[in-house]
């Protein structure tokens, strides 16, 4: 008696659950005159904010291309569309969603997620699915250490992030000699810190402090007091926005003075300047791109950074930072490669990407055998009286670096 009733009820519940999963609407493929890109981007979780910036960069390109007559591939013109899923800033979820975009939603190509760990799992997935992926926000070299052929990153690799600042420092008088480096203990930041340390020792500077802190630390006073003891000329950090704010505040609080304060992430984002106010002045930031960078892009898209920045601000209401620009650049890489390949066949588009060599508003897009854009130089920004100015390299400079940074008491 009990068993049959129980069994039936129970089977119903489980069947209902399975149906829920499969009932997920697998949207029919849009008509074949549209190229569909898939992107698993963080809408929730720790990367929620950067995910939104990446989405803005992708969408800006999509709307621009559709407004200007779409893309011409092998004599046929195509509209462009992008399908998004939220990967919750979780690497496993990113990989599963890439699988879904390809095998469920049948997208043509994949645009990368935000963050190095997510890009790494997505790279493993696209390698299997044999669908090319171009990403603009995963700079860790470990992604490219497995000999993957289907993943390309338009941004300069992680180890170059802080090198621009050191390169600039060598040209300044009085030349700074000692360097202190702190990094968050995660894939990307560790590489940024190591890149800076290698460059410093290779160019006659002395690394007096190099240490890691837990990725989501809430207290950096121990690091700051140790750095204060070394009184290094250049104080660099490879990490995230939270630590950049925390460090800059604690430097002031413990009266730590240096000729240069440099961060890999932070100065570029408006939050950094808004939160710290005048305490943000004089700070240097390693950056992939800035609105004032002077590159002359190839035809087919906006060639000049200033025009890109203006149109972006008109559309989204804020001046674009490098997260937006590198995401748009990822789309540009696909655009030029597809038009050159003249077909939507993934294999041919992949080959076109491998041999791509084009200059855009974001700088040169060219990939080495591993898929890394080693040819792209890093720029250096500095916050001068609340304004973000590009101060290095000379070719793209729109202000001279203000050096050396005065003591906290003298500000």
């Amino acid at each position, binding site marked *: 008696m009990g068993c049959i009733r129980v069994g039936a009820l129970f089977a119903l519940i489980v069947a209902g659950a399975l149906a*829920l999963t499969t009932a997920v609407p697998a949207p029919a493929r849009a008509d074949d005159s549209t190229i569909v890109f898939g992107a698993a981007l963080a809408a929730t979780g720790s990367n929620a904010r950067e995910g939104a910036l990446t989405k803005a960069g992708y969408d800006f390109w999509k709307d621009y291309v559709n407004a200007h007559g779409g893309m011409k591939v092998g004599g046929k013109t195509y509209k462009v569309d992008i399908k998004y899923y939220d990967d919750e800033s979780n690497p496993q979820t990113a990989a*599963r969603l890439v699988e879904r975009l390809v095998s469920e939603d049948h997208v043509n190509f994949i645009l990368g997620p935000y963050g190095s*760990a997510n890009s790494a*799992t997505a790279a*493993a997935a696209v390698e299997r699915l044999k669908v090319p992926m171009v990403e603009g926000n995963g700079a860790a070299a470990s992604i490219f250490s497995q000999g993957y052929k289907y993943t390309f990153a338009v941004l300069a690799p992680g180890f170059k992030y802080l090198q621009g600042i050191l390169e600039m420092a060598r040209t300044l008088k009085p030349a700074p000699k000692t360097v202190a480096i702190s990094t968050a203990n*995660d894939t990307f930041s560790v590489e940024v810190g190591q890149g800076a340390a290698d460059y410093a020792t290779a160019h006659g500077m002395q690394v007096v402090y190099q240490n890691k802190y837990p990725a989501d630390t809430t207290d950096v006073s121990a690091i700051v007091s140790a750095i204060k003891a070394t009184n290094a000329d250049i104080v660099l950090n490879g990490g995230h926005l939270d630590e950049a704010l925390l460090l800059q505040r604690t430097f002031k609080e413990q009266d730590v003075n240096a000729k240069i304060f440099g961060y890999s992430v932070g100065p570029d984002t408006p939050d950094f300047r808004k939160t710290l106010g005048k305490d943000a002045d004089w700070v240097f930031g390693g950056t992939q791109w800035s609105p004032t960078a002077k590159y002359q892009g190839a035809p087919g898209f906006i060639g000049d950074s200033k025009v890109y920045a203006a149109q972006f601000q008109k559309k989204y209401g804020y001046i674009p930072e490098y997260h937006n620009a590198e995401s748009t650049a990822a789309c540009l890489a696909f655009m030029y490669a597809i038009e050159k390949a003249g077909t939507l066949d993934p294999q041919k588009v992949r080959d076109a990407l491998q041999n791509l060599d084009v200059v855009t508003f974001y700088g040169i897009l060219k990939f080495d055998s591993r898929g890394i854009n080693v040819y792209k130089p890093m720029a250096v920004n500095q916050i001068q009286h609340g304004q973000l100015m590009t101060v290095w390299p000379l070719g793209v400079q729109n202000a001279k670096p203000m050096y050396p940074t005065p003591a906290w008491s003298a500000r």
Partner: protein
Amino acid sequence: MGGITGNATALRVTVGILVLLAFVPLLHNGYYENLGRSVLMFATLSLGWNLIGGYTGYVSFGNVAFFGLGAYTSAALWQHWHQQSLLVAVLCAIVVGVVFAAVLGLPILRLRGHYFAIATLGMALALQEIVANIDWLGAGAGYAVRPLDAYSSYYVAMWIVCAGSMLATYLIARSKLGYAFVAIRENEEAAAVLGVDPTRYKVIAWAIGAAMAAAAGAVFAGANGFIDPPTAFATDSNVFPIVMALLGGVGTVAGPLIGAIILTAINESLWSRFPQIHTLFFGAVIVLVVVFLPRGLLWLLDTRGGWRAVAATLGAYRV
């Protein structure tokens, strides 16, 4: 109906579903295979937790530590010895998991209740930090793991690990070992007087659970393609299995897998419809399950308790 396996009909239906899940690779659909592997992985973690948390009554919040260790064992095998075979990875992971569980278990299992729960949480977090500072294991940067070309073998391996864990739980629940665990849960002093050595059997329960978690971790590392401390010791892999066991039925054989299927289904269907607020929904699901189903779905259906017992228990929890 001997044994503490939980409702027999539910068990038969669940085993049926497990067999059905074995055919997913034939669909040749990457998304369903990935989803199925995730269900099997969480079910295995939930079964592992169920032994110590469900049967023995010691709520552990640190089983993700063994999952992480399993993942790192497999990743290290690839990074340093270029060993990609899943069998070797799973076996090594099980050994590492059991050794760690025994060594850490002896001191920690002397604690009880909240102290034990938070000690295990502290253990998992400390292990994540420590691994993040060991260069041999890739430190904070972690490293990529090149998956096997025959990618479906990861699905099959995860299925075998999950089926093995469920079979082990079933055999334990029908054997003397299961009764030692349950006696400790019900009343540790009375169990000792009846000849059950609490420390020994608690460590055994934890070690078997650790072996299951480590095996799941080993298969996950290859399938995921990348391992770093936050991925290997993720909070989700720590808490989801517990909620799944609770939803399905704590202290039963079928509960964990049922919980895993239902929770993944809810999570997956919420996703595509409400990308923005699906984690918020998930929080709401946990609150509802805990308040209205404190002993899980199977306990509701369990002929032993019946509806009267449900109402009585809910009443007893109120203030």
